[in-house]
């Protein structure tokens, strides 16, 4: 069998070099990202609107919508999917223009009213899928988030969540809202912590939520930043 001369193997060598080097570069970049953003068992994320720490094995998805009414910024934080054990944290930020539009359109004057409005909207959404759902207000109060007073509501939707097998679960939702004044008006922040009751009430999940709240900062407000 005739042996290939080295020159004939050149494209194969270039191919192998490219594949291996790109793979190594990708791996190294992943390692770099993990090292750069790690803070113990958490990753630290700085987005356009908010900064916070989240568990390393949770996923984060950000999305921004804008139209003539203003801008809305979403951040979803959720653990790897598990059967029947759904839990998720959602941040929603309305910019100054959208806050004005939103408050005006629905006749709202403060965050407490806005929270009730959002809770009712969620209830109506669930009711469209399950008409037997009931809404129970468990708790209401205020919390300090990054030096700003936030209003919260803790609500349980009985039979509010249907899993893939068609089984109904109670859904617990904590709605938090606060506003922050800027030179152009006021921004509205929502933090919604959803979860199937069995999962939501787990101590480890509550600890994660607490940690996220403790490390949460509005981007731009650097007080107490480590």
């Amino acid at each position, binding site marked *: 069998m005739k042996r290939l001369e080295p020159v004939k193997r050149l494209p194969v060598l270039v*191919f192998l070099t490219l594949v291996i080097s790109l793979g190594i570069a990708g791996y190294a970049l992943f390692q770099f990202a993990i090292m750069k953003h790690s803070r113990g068992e958490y990753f630290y994320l700085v987005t356009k609107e908010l900064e916070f720490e989240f568990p390393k094995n949770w996923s984060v998805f950000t999305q921004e919508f804008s139209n003539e009414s203003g801008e809305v910024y979403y951040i979803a934080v959720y653990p790897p999917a598990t059967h029947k054990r759904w839990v998720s944290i959602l941040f929603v930020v309305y910019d100054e223009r959208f806050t004005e539009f939103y408050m005006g359109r629905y006749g709202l004057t403060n965050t407490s009213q806005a929270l009730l409005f959002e809770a009712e909207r969620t209830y109506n959404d669930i009711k469209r899928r399950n008409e037997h759902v009931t809404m129970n207000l468990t708790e209401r109060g205020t919390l300090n988030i990054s030096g700003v007073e936030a209003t919260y509501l803790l609500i349980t939707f009985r039979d509010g969540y249907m899993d893939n097998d068609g089984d109904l679960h109670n859904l617990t939702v904590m709605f938090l809202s606060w506003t922050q004044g800027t030179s152009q008006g006021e921004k509205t922040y929502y933090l919604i912590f959803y979860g199937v009751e069995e999962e939501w009430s787990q101590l480890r999940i509550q600890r994660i939520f607490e940690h996220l709240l403790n490390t949460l900062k509005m981007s731009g407000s650097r007080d107490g930043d480590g």
Partner: protein
Amino acid sequence: METVREYLSEKASVLKYVALGGLISSLIAFVLRIILLGAIYMILKNFDCLGVRVYGEALLATTLIMIGGTYIPGGFIGGLYVGYKVKDEKLRILLLFSALLGCTVLLALMFFFLGYRVTYYLEMERELRISVFLPLLGVLVGTYLGGYSVNWGKEEEKISEGKLVLEEAPISLALTDIRGVGSRRAKRLRAAGIETVEDLVKASPRVLSAKTGIPEKTIQRIIEHAKRMIEKESLRSMS
């Protein structure tokens, strides 16, 4: 009429190989993309680092792995096929068409068949305006590397033929004297019943191509060289 038909059938077969090469590239890249994205997800999940995907560095890392692990290998295998099947002087252009077709089919497959879950990275790639450019670049590079892996060193073959001719001289001096006929081609020609230059000149390029597997165009060129050689030989003997 016969020549036109032969010409058209030759072109059609070349186009068929180019199209098949493109399809092979796209299908392999498509399957590799699904496997690799799944593998990246599983590895990150097992190492409790799924959250890293939100960072720009992770997006770049995924993009690099996608280029090296899907687009280039897909293009390479498609290019190998085209390079093996087509021994045309216009291989450079044919490979370009094969890569373009491969990339188009790949993008169509990713957009229409994978849905949101797997095109998640593509959504982010779109933000960076690299959703078309990077697959195209990867498939293009892979296709050329694959195509030339089979055809690399064709020029060197001509140089080395001198040496090979000497090795074959005692049994096939006449055939290997023709420009473009090395020891391997001489063997293939002899297997097809062509023992001398005269036999070659009399043969039909089409029939000979079918018997030897050497492209018809190449055989026509070899016959032209053989005719010129006979002319020179007869002039020398007359003088």
